[in-house]
C-alpha cells in the first residue's frame, strides 16, 4: 500500500531538524571564506602531522577490521555448523564483549598494561594497542553477521556439495562464498565503527581524527579546523557505506526467522580440542579479563555501595534518557523505513535510504560540535539546556541502526499482505496498526534494544553536548577517570556492564517470544 503524503512530510521534517541540520551546518560553515581561511591558518590537510594522523586512523581501522575478520567468521562457523564442545555457552559468551562499551575495554587494558608492565607483549599505547582493543570489542559483530549469513544459506546447497566432497571443500567452495556478502558487510561496519571511534584512542593516547577533532574544538576553539579534519573521515566512511549497500543489495541484515534445523553437523574429531582452546582464549581476553580486572580494582563491596549511593540518580537518568532516545529513534526509523521499502518511486527510495544511513559517516565528535552550533543560541536554549539535546544526539547517531533493523524486517513482509488488508479498509493507518506493526514487532524490538544499548554507552557526542547537571553514566565514568578515581571507575563500569547485560537478556526474551508468534511456530 502506498504510504500517504503526510508520512513523507513528517519523516522529512523530523529528519532535517534532528539529524541533518547539525551536519549541514558544519559543512556550510566551511563555505564561509572566513571559515576556510581560519581553518587553513591552523591546519593543512597535507602537512606531515596530518599524514601521521591519517596513517593512524586508517591503520587502526584496517587493523581492527582484519582482526575481527580473523576471529568472527571462523567462530560463527564452529558455533553453528560443527559439534564444538560447549558451543551454546560459548555462543552467548562470545556476544558479551560487544555489550561491554569499547572504552571500558580500553580502561581495562590500560590498567592491565600498568599492572603487568613489560610482561604484556604489547604496547597498548600504540596503534597496535588500539587495534587489539577494538578487535576485542567488535569481533562479535562480524561473528553475528557471519552467523546470520550462515543461517540464511539453504542447507540443501551445502548438502548438494557434501554428496561429492568432504566438509572442508564444501566450506571453502559453497558455504563461504554464500556467506561472504554478510561477512563483508559486517567488516565494513567494523571499519566504520573503528575509524569514527573517539573513546578508545583517546584513553590509549593515540592520535586519530576523532580525537584531534575533539582537541581542535575543545582546546583551541578551532571549529573550522575541526570541520576540516572531519571531511576526509566523512568522505571515506560515506564511500564505504555506499560499497556496503552494494554488497548487501536486496539481502536482509538479520535473518529474522532463522534457518531450518541443521540435520548434519561437521564433526571436528581431534580438532575439537584445539578449536575449543582457541575459543577459550578469545573469551578469556574479551570477557574474563575485563570482568576480573574491574572486580579486582573495584575492591570491597562497600565501594559498590558508595558508588551506588553517589550515582544512582545518574544511573536512573541514563536509563530514562536512553529509553526516550531509543523510542524517538524507533519512531523516526519506522517512518523512514516505510518510505524506503514501500515508496513507489525508486528515486525517493534511494534518497531516503542514503539520507538515513549517512549519519554513520559522521564522527561522534563532529556531530556534537554541529549540535552545539545549531542549538546553543538563546532561541533554542530550551533544547540545549534540557534532556532533549541528549535525546537528539542519540537519534542522530543511531538512526541508521533503527532504519536498517526495521527495513530488513519490512522487506520480508510481502506487500500482498498489506494489499489484502487494503481490500478490507481504506485507512492506511488502520492497516499500519493492525497488520504491519504486529508483523514488524521483531524488527522494532531489534531496533529499540540496539539503540537503547548503544545510547546507554554513548560517549563521543554526549561528552560535548551534555548540559551541566545531567550527566549520564559514561560521562561520569569519563570524568572520574580523569580525576584518577580508580576503584569508583571500576565499580561504575561493572554496573554499566551489568545493566547492559540485563537489557540484552530482556531483549532476547522479548524477541524470542515475538518472533515465535509472528512466524506462527
Amino acid at each position, binding site marked *: 500500500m502506498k504510504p500517504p503524503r503526510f508520512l513523507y512530510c513528517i519523516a522529512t521534517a523530523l529528519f532535517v531538524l534532528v539529524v541533518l541540520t547539525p551536519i549541514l551546518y558544519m559543512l556550510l560553515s566551511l563555505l564561509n571564506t572566513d571559515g576556510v581561511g581560519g581553518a587553513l591558518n591552523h591546519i593543512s590537510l597535507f602537512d606531515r602531522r596530518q599524514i601521521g594522523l591519517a596513517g593512524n586512523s586508517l591503520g587502526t581501522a584496517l587493523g581492527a577490521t582484519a582482526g575481527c575478520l580473523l576471529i568472527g567468521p571462523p567462530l560463527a562457523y564452529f558455533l553453528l555448523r560443527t559439534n564444538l564442545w560447549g558451543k551454546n555457552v560459548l555462543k552467548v559468551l562470545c556476544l558479551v564483549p560487544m555489550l561491554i562499551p569499547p572504552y571500558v575495554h580500553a580502561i581495562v587494558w590500560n590498567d592491565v598494561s600498568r599492572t603487568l608492565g613489560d610482561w604484556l607483549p604489547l604496547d597498548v599505547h600504540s596503534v597496535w594497542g588500539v587495534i587489539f582493543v577494538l578487535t576485542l570489542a567488535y569481533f562479535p559483530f562480524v561473528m553475528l553477521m557471519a552467523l546470520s549469513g550462515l543461517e540464511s544459506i539453504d542447507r540443501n546447497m551445502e*548438502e*548438494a556439495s*557434501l554428496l561429492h566432497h568432504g566438509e572442508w571443500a564444501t566450506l571453502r567452495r559453497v558455504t563461504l562464498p554464500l556467506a561472504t556478502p554478510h561477512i563483508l558487510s559486517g567488516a565494513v561496519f567494523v571499519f566504520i565503527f573503528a575509524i569514527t571511534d573517539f573513546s578508545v584512542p583517546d584513553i590509549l593516547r593515540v592520535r586519530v581524527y576523532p580525537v584531534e577533532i575533539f582537541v581542535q574544538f575543545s582546546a583551541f576553539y578551532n571549529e573550522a579546523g575541526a570541520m576540516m579534519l572531519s571531511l576526509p573521515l566523512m568522505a571515506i566512511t560515506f564511500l564505504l557505506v555506499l560499497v556496503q549497500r552494494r554488497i548487501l543489495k536486496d539481502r536482509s541484515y538479520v535473518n529474522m526467522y532463522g534457518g531450518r534445523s541443521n540435520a548434519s553437523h561437521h564433526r571436528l574429531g581431534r580438532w575439537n580440542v584445539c578449536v575449543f582452546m582457541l575459543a577459550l582464549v578469545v573469551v578469556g581476553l574479551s570477557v574474563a579479563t575485563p570482568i576480573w580486572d574491574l572486580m579486582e580494582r573495584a575492591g570491597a563491596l562497600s565501594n559498590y555501595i558508595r558508588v551506588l549511593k553517589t550515582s544512582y540518580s545518574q544511573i536512573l537518568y541514563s536509563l530514562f534518557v536512553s529509553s526516550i532516545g531509543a523510542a524517538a529513534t524507533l519512531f523516526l526509523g519506522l517512518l523512514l523505513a516505510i518510505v524506503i521499502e514501500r515508496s513507489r518511486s525508486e528515486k525517493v527510495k534511494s534518497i531516503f535510504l542514503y539520507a538515513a544511513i549517512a549519519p554513520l559517516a559522521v564522527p561522534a565528535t563532529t556531530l556534537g560540535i554541529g549540535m552545539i552550533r545549531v542549538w546553543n543560541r538563546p532561541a533554542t536554549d530550551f533544547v540545549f539546556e534540557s534532556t532533549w539535546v541528549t535525546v537528539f544526539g542519540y537519534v542522530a547517531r543511531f538512526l541508521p541502526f533503527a532504519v536498517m533493523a526495521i527495513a530488513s524486517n519490512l522487506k520480508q513482509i510481502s506487500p500482498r499482505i498489506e494489499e489484502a488488508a487494503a481490500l478490507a479498509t481504506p485507512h492506511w493507518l488502520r492497516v499500519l496498526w493492525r497488520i504491519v506493526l504486529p508483523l514488524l514487532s521483531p524488527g522494532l524490538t531489534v531496533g529499540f534494544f540496539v539503540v537503547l544499548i548503544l545510547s546507554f554507552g554513548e560517549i563521543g557526542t554526549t561528552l560535548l553536548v551534555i548540559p551541566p547537571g545531567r550527566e549520564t553514566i559514561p560521562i561520569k565514568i569519563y570524568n572520574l577517570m580523569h580525576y584518577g578515581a580508580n576503584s569508583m571507575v571500576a565499580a561504575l563500569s561493572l554496573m554499566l556492564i551489568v545493566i547492559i547485560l540485563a537489557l540484552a537478556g530482556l531483549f532476547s526474551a522479548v524477541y524470542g517470544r515475538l518472533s515465535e508468534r509472528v512466524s506462527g511456530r
Partner: protein
Amino acid sequence: MIVLDGIGKRFGGKESLSGVSLQVAPGEILAVMGPSGSGKTTLLRIVAGFESPDEGSVSIDGVEATSPEKSLPPHSRKISMIFQDLALWPHMTASEQLRFVLKKRMKSGQEIEVEIAALLGSVNLHDYARRYPHQLSGGERQRLAMARALAAKPAYLLMDEPLSSLDPIVKDELEKMILDIQSVARMGIIYVTHNSDEVHALADRVAILDRGRLVRDERKDVLLTDPGCELARRLLRV
C-alpha cells in the same frame, strides 16, 4: 543394491518413518509415492546420509552405510541426489557447478573440460555453460541439476519430486531424457513423486508410504492391476 532394513526416524517425538524396509537394484527405477508429509524426503535424506535413522540400517552394495551407531559420509556412498528445490549453487555458472563435482573423480583439467561439454550436451544445455542458475528457465535448471547429479557417475540416483514444478510439455521432454540417460547409465534410481503420470512413464517398481509406514511395495504392473488399498488406488488413479 541399496538395502533399507527396518528404518525408523523421529523428529521431536513425532514419528516420521517407522519400520521401512526396501531394496533398490542397479538399473531399477523405484518410484516412492505418498501424500505430502508421509516421509518421502526424509527417506531419501537417510539414504544419502544427511540424517541418521533412529532404528534400522542402510547398506549400499554390501557396505554398511548407516546404522544408529555409525555413518558413512555422503560423499563416500556412490550416490547423487536431485533435491526438491534443486539446490543449484547460485554463485557458480553451469560449467563451474559441473567442474566442482567432476574434480572428485578426475584430475586432468583437459579431461574435465571434455566431460563438462559431454554432460551439458547430454541434457541439451550446450549453449548455457556460462549461465548462472538465475539466468535459466525452470526446465533448464532441472536439466542442469540432472547433469550435476550425473557428473559424479553415481551408482544410485535419488530424485525428490524432480518434475513437480514444470509444465506438461517440459515434463514430457524430461521424462524422455531420464529414460534415455537411464538406458545408458543403468543406475539404481529412487524416484519420489506423487504424480501418477510420472510413475506410469518411468517406474519399474512402486513403493507407497502412508504416514511413515510402507503400505505397498510391488512391481508397477502388479500394482496397477491390483492396487490393494484405497491410498494406492487414489495415488495411481486406477
